[in-house]
């Protein structure tokens, strides 16, 4: 599904060039549940953003479902991003002026899903995540864990094939964190490929593979167990 070849990301700092990612080679198959770990400032978020097409690499190749992303134009990249990917953030990043229901519904609006279908899809997910009672509340009326539940619901509402999560439990205490991780496991079992960044060994155990990044390089890459998903094709 994802193939990175000699990927690099550098930024100018004054006269010098600083490499945030350097010579990253990586292949991730559909159905995997990958955990990225590493010290602060190692480049984990940057890697995730590049995979999620929120940032562009400065060198190397990025293939997604056999499409050479590094050669595609902005519009095409946006289309792939929109069709296949969902994002979960450490700081939840819900839209403050929209209710829970409206936040979850918004991705469907951008995908032109018709009103009736939209209602039933949102209703299903509210039900599944047990947040029906909260649907008319605004984000600042929810606890962190509840907000992150909404964040995950919003990320998967359009059934993405790839879920990218940057320290999704970083702001939560362990009980809430576990709830989110359980959800991830379920989603992964349903066939969603997941890449998460985390500092927590415990969270890492939910995954099938752990990649450790240090100073913009992949230090270790180990398969902890067989990929849970059987639906993956690539």
């Amino acid at each position, binding site marked *: 599904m994802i193939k990175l070849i000699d990927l690099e990301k550098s930024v100018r700092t004054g006269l010098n060039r600083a490499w945030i990612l350097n010579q990253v080679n990586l292949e991730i198959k559909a159905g995997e549940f990958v955990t990225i770990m590493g010290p602060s400032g190692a480049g984990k978020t940057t890697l995730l953003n590049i995979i*999620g097409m929120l940032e562009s690499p400065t060198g190397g190749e990025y293939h997604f479902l056999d499409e050479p992303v590094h050669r595609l134009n902005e519009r095409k990249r946006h289309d792939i991003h929109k069709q296949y990917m969902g994002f979960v953030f450490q700081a939840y*990043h819900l839209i403050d*002026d*929209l209710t829970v229901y409206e936040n979850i519904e918004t991705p469907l609006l*951008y995908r032109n899903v018709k009103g009736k279908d939209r209602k039933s899809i949102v209703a299903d997910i509210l039900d599944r995540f047990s947040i029906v009672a909260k649907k008319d509340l605004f984000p600042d009326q929810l606890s962190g864990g509840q907000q992150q539940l909404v964040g995950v619901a*919003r990320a998967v509402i359009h059934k993405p094939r790839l879920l990218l999560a940057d320290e999704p439990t970083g702001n939560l205490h362990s009980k809430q964190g576990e709830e989110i991780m359980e959800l991830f496991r379920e989603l992964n079992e349903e066939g969603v490929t997941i890449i998460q960044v985390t500092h927590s060994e415990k969270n890492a155990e939910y995954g099938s593979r752990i990649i450790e990044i240090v100073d913009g390089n992949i230090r270790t890459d180990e398969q902890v167990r067989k990929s849970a998903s059987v639906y993956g094709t690539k």
Partner: protein
Amino acid sequence: MLQNYFKVAYRHFWKHKVHLLINVLGLGIALASCVIAYLSWKFDHDFDHFHTRGEQIFRVVSIKKDNLQAFGVCPAPLAAAAKAEVSGVQDALILEFRNAVISNGKDTDRERISFTENAFFEWFDFPLLSGQIRLDDAATAVISEALAIKYFGTSDPVGQILTIYPDQPFQKQLLITGLLKDTPVNSSIQYELLTSVENMYNRDNAQVNLKDWTYLTDATFLMLKNPEDQERVSRYLEAYLPVQNQMHSDWQIEKFALQPLNTMAHHADDLRWNALGQSLPPSMVWGMTLMGILLLLTASLNFTNMSISLSGRRLKEIGVRKVIGGSRKQLIWQLLMEGLLISLIALGVGLLFTDWLLPRYNQMWTFVDLHLVFTQNLPLVAFLIAVLLTTTFIAAAYPAFYISGFNPTGIFRGKVKFAGANLFSKILLGAQVGISTIALVAGFAFTRNAEFQKNADIGFQREGIQAIRIPDEQTFRVMEANARQHPQVQAVAGVRFHIGDSAPRIEVKFKDKKQEVEFMPVGENYLEVMDIQLLSGRSFDYQLSTDFTESILINEKFADLYFQDGDPLGQQLTLFDTLRYNVVGVVKNFIQDNFHDPIRPLVLTLTKPDRFGYLVIKTQSADMLEVRDHLSVAWKKDFAQMPFEHYFQDDFLASSLKTNTNIQYIFSVFALIALLLSMTGLNSLVSLNLLKRLKEVTIRRILGARPSQIAYLLSAHFLIVAFIGLAVGGLIGLKLSEMLLNSIYQVHVGVTYFSLLVAGIVVVIVAFLTISRSIVQAITANPSDALNND
């Protein structure tokens, strides 16, 4: 999706109600002035456009040979001749006017009577409300609603009798046969009472002979079969020049010109002896337009500034929307739609405001009558849509295109700190302050001019002076005696054309040149009563009988224009081709009509009471009303058949002053709104800046910075920008005020840097008051709060 946008917009703005309210009101008022500017333009543009056959109708004007100026009058026989003999002319029509006394037996007043024939109503679309038109019968008349109400109140005027010329031997009773709708204000032809041309009398009390080439009609219209024949027909009319010029040797015509009915009102300002109306003063249209545009700009820019300063909050939303699938295009649309929504609300507010304002605006100017009517008014609707889109674009384009371009990762990493104080918003602030200053400077310039009009030395005594119009010597003698009887009356005098009642212009020959000058025959004592100062030579000597026939005074202007290289005293002037006078003195310039008109070269002769037109009475100011009442009672006793036409001297200057006060008022309101808007902008910029730099400021304070240094740190760069705006706006304001004053008044106080100084002081004080709150907040904030709260 729209609903989603709408909810976000609604909730977002609801959290910033005050900001939004100020902005919507500002935009609303700005849009209202744009709408008024448009309506004024349209009103002016549509002058005389309501006649179905208007395309075919042309007015004949005469170009005089000696000065090549266009005159509204035309030799009377031309109409009949053109109709009979000139091919392409389908019909011809004469329209005449007289200011004459009319009476219903009870009320008597001087009115403007129009003389024409039945065909007038086939030519022009002036609707008859009731009765019929029978102008072929010279014993009938039709009147306007306004006149009907004045003389007959609520009772039906049709069938009633009005007497015209009750003060004359040839007085005549007319049967009112029809009631006409009042003329629209933007019509060159204005009537009150229309009757047959047969009822016209000339100066010698004889019926007017329309076959007389020396008789000039007020307006002659031709109806052409084909409007394209305009040039050709005016060439054909040249055939009548020889006969006219032979018959009327002292009024030689160079040629005739045809003015289309549809556009003539816009050329009427250059037309002399024009008995028809004219379009709006151009400054009225461009002044309003300029004001509308400037206000709209200020208000839209303020909106932009608000969007930018509030966008810190919106950034996260923008980033999130991009991550969850929104394209940049969709985000631009979302932000533009928000702008459109606000503009739409503002337009609603603006239209309500216009609706409220229009009656008041119409009342300010007698020659304006604007209405906001949407039905069957596609141009207005199109204009509103255009304004709406423009506003939206100015207000929302910058935030929409700029903010939507940010990368979500940049936003989430907190690298995009987009709030307030970027270069763009500083430029906006400068522009707003500049616009406010323009309005302030103009407001002060007109305030100064109002003072000038009230107090300036205008060359004659205006306090304690009143005048009554008198028709003949006998009336003069009786009223003069009545006035002298009153103990408070200090002096009286007679004059033919009183100051303020535009004296006629005549031709004067001297040094083998002919010049047109104003002509003012005065009675004994008039110069003393009016306190007109002598500059050189001597004044009239009332004992000297030759002074009545041979001596003449000229004004300073005359001397300056035509006697630069020599002493005018002793020079000989010839009036009316035969009467010779010697210049015995020069008088100081004085305002002859009002401030709208220039001071013109003038001659004064001494005349006897048989030529008087006014009785002028001088008292203490406090006694004026009492004396007026005394005279009014005396008049009613002896001359009940004639109207008592009374003027206070200040009445003549009142219209100039009213115009000035109106403009002053408009600019004050404009300045107030612009200032309010720009200060909101300044406030949001400074308080945002404070928010961003609170921590820095606090640390500096702990390190020992003085309050003045903190104040400087927070506001210096805004104040510099505001100062540049102030300077540029001030200079533009001065230039603009001068242009406006020049276009309205021939005599005015001019502009000085003083207005700029006052405006500058006002802006600086208001700006300091505006930012002082934020600065005090910065200086007094508790350091530990400021540092922890991050």
